[in-house]
């Protein structure tokens, strides 16, 4: 089996960051409001593996959104300094992707509506980031619209 990639959208990433302990980076996580049961299995497979056969992937844009809605995302569970420290020195199992010209090219492939429901530009950046990787990737999201997307190499997990 190859390397496992799982992109976390902003809400799922917030749950992961809340539980991340830099003193024990491979500690198993628990279910959260957004980090649901099936997602958790994938995330914990990656987090506990010290051989690094898998990675959580997040867009730099997710961190923009986390800062932009800091109190709503973290409800006092972490400080801005803790978030900054993760940005500066992320855990070994977390890849934070740049927003670059490849992202913009992939953004063109993301539909702006599914079954008549609009896909937000924010969400489209996350989907573009998943496409950008060019590998099979799980996409962890609680968004019901995104889960309906049918895109190559992306498996949406919303439970």
């Amino acid at each position, binding site marked *: 089996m190859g390397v496992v990639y799982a992109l976390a959208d902003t809400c799922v990433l917030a749950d992961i960051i809340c539980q991340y302990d830099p003193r024990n980076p491979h500690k198993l996580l628990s279910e959260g409001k957004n980090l649901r049961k099936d997602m958790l299995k994938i995330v914990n497979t990656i987090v506990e593996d010290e051989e690094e056969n898998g990675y959580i992937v997040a867009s*730099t*844009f997710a*961190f*923009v*959104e986390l*800062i*932009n*809605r*800091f*109190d*709503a995302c973290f409800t006092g569970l972490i400080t*801005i300094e803790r978030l*900054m420290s993760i*940005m*500066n020195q*992320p855990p070994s199992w977390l890849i*934070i992707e*740049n*927003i*670059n*010209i490849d*992202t*913009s*090219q992939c*953004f*063109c*492939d993301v539909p*702006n509506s599914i079954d008549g429901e609009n896909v937000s*530009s*924010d969400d*489209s*950046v996350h989907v*573009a980031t998943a496409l950008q990787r060019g590998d099979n990737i799980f996409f962890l999201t609680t968004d019901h619209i995104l889960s309906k997307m049918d895109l190559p190499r992306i498996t949406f997990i919303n439970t």
Partner: protein
Amino acid sequence: MADVVLNRKEILTIMEKGQVDARYSNYVDFAFLPVILAIDLIEREKKRGGKTPADLKKLFELVPECVNVISLSISGLYDAMSDQDFADKYINRTGNPFEFATEATAYENEGWWDRVEFLDSLKELPWE
């Protein structure tokens, strides 16, 4: 010579015609285009309709060499957030994250633009 971010109309001209308007080239050495701003523009084009994904991708192929397209990395965002004025402006702002990300691009460590002029030029851009 000023370093500027181009306004949306000018960016679209560049992307559709592949050239910087002569009015700009007379006083600008290099134009800087934050890629997140280009994504915002593509989103507007998607909403207008009438273009396929292939049509939209072609817009990027036409961006001329004299336009420097800038990425946003997590280290650039970290540097932006290390500027207390910037951090105070955007923490919990709950505004348009594309505006936030575009302004953070000014802190990318490519080192050869004037950040003050860059940020000043961004003030010309209206956001919803």
